[in-house]
């Protein structure tokens, strides 16, 4: 077989930057027919971007393309859309399901590729009026399900299906494409039960035997070891390790994933708040936040500390602050300074002097088309009646423009917000400066407890340091307790006193911030679902 010598896919010197922010550099990857490689790395390591390049995502083109070459079957290819990639034999199963809820398995497997029969009307009005050939559809779906090796009901409607079967439907859809040569599976086992995951692994082996090459992305390292030929570890946009799977183990991979050159240089001033009283206790919290489900979380926050919440994407860390603040439906008990805070009522949280800096800066955090003054003063004005002038014994309240300007100027100075004036619209600022406005807004509330979610997501290094520093100072100087949620372990280690790791929607463990990266990494992967 000549194909064993010639790789099916070669990615050479791939690099990608988003407006000057380099996210991938010098990536080299080869893949042969029937080979299974496991691609691992922390969130933000660049796995998804790399796969998007391979799959011809339009997003890559809109942001200026990529550097390097993608060579498929010995020929260089340039995919301008996923459809080109599909035509060339690449299939991808995404993390989010791409299924029509009211369609059956068969209809979804053959979505927009249904076999049809011609009829009189379609001869006149065009092919779209061909009738569907149901018998042929059934046959092809059965064949794809057989190839997959996992039995699923082909007549069941997707919305009635257990989540694992939805995943298998997606895989069967890729398998039903005759030209399929290379299949990308992006965290396919994240939603599967243990037994289903085993079935999937068996199915992967079966597909590989039939000559389909597979790129398998997962956080469950054990699976990689059991099914892959090679493991490719990415970190910070580069491939740090490319090694045969039988020559490594879970500990080693974990270390490669999280270990940084600067590792071990955690914040030196980790403080212990053993003696401090519990300011917030969370009991049996569940949150129904799509993609970030929280299950049965118990957590106590000590007065005056910075508590970090870390974990991989989709494990539920974002659900915790969003649930407590009432942005997503939640249940359980939250007690703040001895008083129970009702859930699903954002106003009550704010009245209890919580503040929240959302990870969804543009959606939840800012009034994009209003001035900085408004953005910063608005919550304080609404919730605490600050910056208002009262007339007629409080019947009429007017905005105190002067006080608003003063407070805005103060924060612009303190946080070094780069803007033309305090009247500039929030939309016009860069991501980092928008984030600073979000912080200023929360600071202006003078909260007792501040939730910060992904404070440095999508902002550059300089702004990152400033934001983290501002949070630390706010905590030290004003004695505000901070709960900081972040995907970046290093950032948590630098800023926090304790770090709680969320895995599978639950708290997997709480460690002091100066714990080793390996220990934290292990917790992150411990209950991954």
């Amino acid at each position, binding site marked *: 077989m000549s194909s064993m010598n010639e790789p099916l896919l070669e990615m050479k010197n791939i690099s990608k930057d988003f407006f000057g922010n380099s996210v991938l550099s010098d990536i080299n990857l080869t893949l042969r027919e029937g080979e299974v490689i496991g691609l691992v790395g922390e969130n933000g390591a660049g796995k998804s971007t790399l796969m998007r390049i391979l799959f011809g995502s339009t997003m890559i083109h809109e942001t200026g393309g990529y550097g390097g070459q993608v060579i498929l079957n010995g020929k260089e290819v340039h995919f301008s859309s*996923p459809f080109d990639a599909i035509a060339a034999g690449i299939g991808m199963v995404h993390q989010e399901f791409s299924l*029509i809820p009211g369609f059956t398995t068969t209809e979804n497997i053959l979505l927009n590729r249904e076999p049809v029969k011609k009829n009189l009307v379609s001869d006149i009005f065009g092919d779209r009026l061909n009738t569907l050939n149901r018998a042929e559809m059934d046959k092809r779906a059965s064949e794809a399900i057989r190839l997959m090796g996992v039995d699923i009901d082909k007549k069941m409607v997707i919305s009635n299906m257990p989540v694992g079967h939805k995943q298998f439907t997606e895989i069967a859809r890729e398998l039903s494409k005759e030209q399929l040569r290379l299949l990308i599976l992006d965290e396919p086992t994240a939603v599967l039960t243990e037994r289903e995951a085993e079935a999937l692994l068996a199915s992967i082996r079966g597909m590989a035997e039939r000559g389909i090459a597979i790129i398998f992305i997962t956080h469950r390292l054990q699976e990689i070891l059991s099914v892959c030929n090679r493991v490719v570890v990415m970190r910070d946009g580069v491939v740090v390790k490319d090694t045969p799977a039988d020559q490594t183990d879970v500990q080693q991979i974990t270390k490669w994933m999280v270990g940084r050159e600067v590792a071990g240089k955690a914040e030196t001033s980790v403080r212990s708040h053993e003696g401090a009283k519990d300011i917030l206790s969370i009991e049996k919290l*569940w949150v129904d936040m799509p993609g970030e489900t929280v299950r049965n979380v118990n957590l106590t926050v000590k007065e005056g500390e910075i508590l970090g919440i870390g974990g991989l994407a989709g494990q539920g860390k974002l659900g915790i602050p969003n649930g407590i603040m009432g942005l997503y439906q939640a249940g359980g008990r939250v007690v703040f300074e001895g008083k129970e805070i009702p859930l699903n009522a954002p106003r009550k949280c704010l009245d209890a002097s919580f503040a929240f800096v959302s990870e969804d800066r543009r959606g939840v955090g800012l009034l994009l088309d209003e001035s900085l003054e408004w953005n910063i003063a608005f919550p304080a004005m609404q919730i605490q009646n600050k910056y208002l002038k009262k007339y007629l014994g409080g019947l009429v309240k007017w905005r105190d423009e002067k006080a608003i300007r003063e407070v805005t100027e103060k924060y612009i100075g303190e946080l070094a917000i780069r803007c033309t004036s305090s009247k500039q619209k929030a939309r016009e600022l860069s991501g980092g400066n928008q984030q600073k406005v979000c912080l200023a807004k929360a600071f202006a509330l003078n909260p007792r407890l501040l939730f910060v979610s992904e404070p440095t997501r999508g902002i550059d290094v300089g702004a990152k340091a400033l934001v983290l520093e501002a949070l630390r100072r706010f905590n030290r100087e004003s004695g505000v307790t901070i709960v900081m949620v972040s995907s970046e372990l290093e950032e948590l280690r630098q800023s926090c006193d304790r770090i709680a790791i969320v895995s599978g929607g639950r708290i997997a463990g709480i460690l002091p911030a100066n714990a080793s990266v390996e220990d934290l990494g292990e917790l992150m992967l411990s209950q991954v679902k």
Partner: protein
Amino acid sequence: MNNTSKNTKILSFLRSSSVPILFIIICAVCIPLSGLSANMLFNEITTRMGRNAFLILSLLIPIMAGMGLNFGMTLGAMAGEIALILVSDWQIVGIPGMVLAMILSVPFSILLGLFCGKILNMAKGREMITSYIISYFINGVYLLVVLYMMGSVIPIKHSTIKLPRGYGIRNTVSLLNMRQKLDNLIPLKLNIPGVGIVKIPVMTFIIIAILCLVIVWFRRTKLGQDMRAVGQDMEVARDAGINVERTRIISIVISTVLAGFGMIIYLQNMGNIATYSSHSQIGMFCIAALLVGGASVDKASIGNVFLGVILFHTMFIVAPKAGAAITGDSMIGEYFRVFVSYAVITIALVMYETQKRKAKSQEGAMLAAAQDEGEEEKDS
């Protein structure tokens, strides 16, 4: 266990069909009060079924494509009216006149449908209100054409339909030569025991039946499948390579063309065109009838259409009489039926929203239940 699941099934059936049930109750109360004879009631309902069913059926395809209850059909109705005005000026009568009007309405309907579809593609998720406002806007254009351009720019010969000032169309255009020509093409009078003689508009019913078959067939075509996919999840459909925008526009165009035909059938039954008002409430009444039949914003079947026509129009017929019988004032009943048709739309929309919320909170409840279960397992 089995019993409870049966109970919940019955409950969920009752909840989902609460609007039709409410209307069955209203009708059951009003029919005896109205004092109408069974014969008259049956005759009225068969007439109105023939008159309205085609129009209401034209709503089904946009719902399938996820565009909700759509006032785009009002545009088709206007196209049908313009075609009928022209045909009646040309003095083409009877069935040939109707057929010509239908053919003539098609280009107008397609143009208006394209326009409406394009705009609705910019207002995804707000189709109902957007199409409602578009129908007002196009009503303005319609007035311009009918009130000022007909007779001045567009030649209108016959003074019977022209305003005395020389241009513009009269308030009422008589369709006497066309009146119920389709309904009576195949005359049939059924003698139902206990009810008496009921006149059946056979040909109209046949056409409606054909349209139903076409809709059933259409659902099985590639285009129908694409529309269902687009209706359920636009993003997924787009990822699968379906041209979402084009599919949505096609669904609106089909709806306006069918509504144009439907309006012509409607007006041949009435026997005259109320030039400035025929189309204005037709959208509202059709949507109300469909909702009364148990449809929701995202799901409607042919069964909903017929149940809706029967219930809504029974109420329409009996409510004024019942109102008059109770209060001695016939205006009360008249008020009541208009009030009810708007109320139905409001209630149905509110219920749709609450059902969506309920489904959402159920997910949360399931999460909480799973959590408790997990704990029990741990304990044991």
